[in-house]
């Protein structure tokens, strides 16, 4: 099942691209990466939009969670009122889940296609479709610049590139948070989702940077190219979101102004006044609900100073 639907098609696609692109395996990986990114583009865009939407709704979500922590049914009702569906946030992970088999498949496909051992070449023969003339394609060229594509990069260039491009991609694909706008670290701590997203900006690139020390160079090249495409995609999303906000600002200046002046609040520290405000907001018109933002949290240190 796995071999028939994931691994073998990948192996054959790589071989066909290698054949069409003048027996250049790096070019084959590059075109393959673009194809994979194109295939997953709708899902990626959906995930990004969903992520940005969630980010903006966080203050309301936290306030509702805090207020109705002992009444899940009521909590769900309130979530529905503001248009939040927890299942939708899980669906946002779908592109990542879909990419996992692709990554694992590609990892295996590169190992098998580069045929670094007799057994892997033997395995390849059984996986190649009849219309591909493997005899003519062999041996697969495994040299590119200083790299042996079947081995890790000995000069550390690819691990650094994997880290750098993945970091940039994560940064661009993450919605701009209030922290970035107001420079308040506390606010990041107050919003767990934003905090986690910020942490992932570092965690994922560091992890994959380490992994690239042991990955075959061919796989690291895939990561670098995929990240570069992701950077372009992130840049595009940022611009389109900014344009959207601008349009909204022109249409509803009062609403947008209120939103920009209100910072992200912390549910655990919310006062009863916040709860009252939430009640009022929930009872009010949809416009009023949208304008609702919990009160800014006051730190202990500030309270002591007062």
């Amino acid at each position, binding site marked *: 099942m796995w071999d028939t639907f994931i691994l073998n098609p990948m192996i054959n696609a790589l071989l066909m691209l290698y054949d069409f692109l003048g027996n250049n395996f790096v070019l084959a990986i590059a075109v393959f990466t673009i194809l994979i990114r194109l295939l997953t583009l709708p899902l990626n865009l959906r995930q990004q939009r969903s992520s940005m939407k969630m980010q903006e709704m966080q203050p309301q979500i936290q306030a509702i969670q805090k207020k109705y922590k002992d009444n899940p049914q009521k909590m769900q009702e309130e979530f529905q009122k503001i248009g939040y569906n927890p299942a939708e946030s899980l669906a946002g992970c779908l592109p990542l889940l879909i990419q996992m088999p692709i990554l694992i498949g590609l990892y295996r496909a590169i190992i098998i296609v580069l045929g670094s051992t007799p057994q892997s070449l033997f395995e390849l*023969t059984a996986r190649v479709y009849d219309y591909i003339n493997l005899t003519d394609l062999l041996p697969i060229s*495994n040299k590119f610049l200083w790299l042996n594509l079947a081995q890790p990069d000995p000069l550390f260039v690819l691990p650094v590139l994997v880290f750098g491009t993945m970091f940039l991609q994560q940064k661009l694909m993450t919605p701009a948070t209030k922290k970035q706008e107001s420079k308040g670290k506390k606010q990041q701590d107050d919003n767990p989702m934003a905090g986690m997203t910020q942490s992932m900006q570092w965690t994922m690139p560091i992890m994959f940077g380490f992994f690239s020390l042991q990955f075959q160079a061919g796989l690291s090249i895939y990561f670098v190219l995929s990240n570069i495409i992701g950077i372009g995609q992130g840049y595009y999303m940022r611009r389109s979101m900014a344009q959207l906000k601008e349009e909204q600002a022109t249409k509803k200046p009062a609403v947008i102004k209120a939103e920009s002046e209100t910072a992200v609040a912390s549910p655990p520290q919310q006062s009863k006044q916040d709860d009252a405000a939430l009640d009022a907001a929930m009872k009010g018109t949809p416009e009023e609900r949208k304008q609702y933002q919990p009160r800014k949290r006051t730190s202990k240190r500030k309270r002591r100073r007062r």
Partner: protein
Amino acid sequence: MYAAKRPLRRPVIFLLIIASYLFVACGVQTANTNWPGLSTDGEKVYVAYGPEVVAYDVESQSKTWSFPAETNPTLQFFAAPSVQDGRIILGDFGASGGMLSPGVVVTLYALNDTDQGVPGSIWTNGELVSDRVVAPPLQVGDQLFVGTANNFIMSIDATTGAKQWEFEVGHSIWGQPAYKEGVLYLSSLDKSIYALEAETGQELWQTELSGALASSPVVNTDLVYVASFDNQLHALDIQTGQEKWAASAQDWIWDAPAFADGVVYFVDIQGNVYAVDGASGDQIWSQQLNLPVQTSPVVVGETVYIASGDDLDAENPQGALTALNVADGKQQWQKTAPGPLFTTPVVVGDSIIVALQSDQDLLIAFDLETGGQNWDYLPPQE
């Protein structure tokens, strides 16, 4: 709920980073699996498979030694050991280069054979080669020839481990080189066969064929035979490299042919066995086994033995050893093994010994005459 989640976030991220660091630092690298490498000195068999090399005494039917004394799970041996006058040469598939190293360290070992305990080290060198040793090394006197997966053939002083010369070819070397009268014959996946002056490494001739060459050349008095992925067995002039004749098969010929009494025997990967005249290439007979074969035929007396594997998608892959008449290719007997036989068997005394890629047996000895099982060996499972 929220208050409990937040303190966990940073430790989890920290742990993830530490785990990925350890993943690299502990050398969890790409696993390169292969079938066992098997050789013999006529008394013992030496099998390189996974983390260790085992020497097994056929007469006493017991393990003599294993190397290294303490196995390293990231270090793997698959190339058949080279044995000559009690000196054993091993090349490995590489181990992690250490903390944060992106490379692998491939080491060559020269060992003194022993009848008990651990073989003594003559020399060990982790700097001579920079990629896997797939091809079995070749010793000629005190000269050692090692082909590597990153396209080099090296001449090394077998007594000291000092490099004498190296020669780069177009792709990996998977077949053991052949030597005859001061000339080294070498095949490569780059589709070429090379003749080099063994003393200096100077190229005498190179002939490019139309398919990759994964196996050793076989040298006759005036011809060099080489099996190719272009579905042909090629016979080249030993002096010039010019092709004299080519015998066709139905599919790739993976491993080296066998030459005996003027006849060349070879098998394609579909299990079609051919016997052709060594001088003219004219076919004498052919026989269908209908089993996948990656090994060389072994000729002993009036019998040619073929070890075969199984389909890759077989649920319980098995192997088979088939005995055919050298005269007409008719089957004498066929015995099954509880694992695929991808390794060319060796002959010791009255037994033909196969190495298995299986967790049920590592070695099985079949009687040359009847095919009955004489003994088998599976290292103790830890």
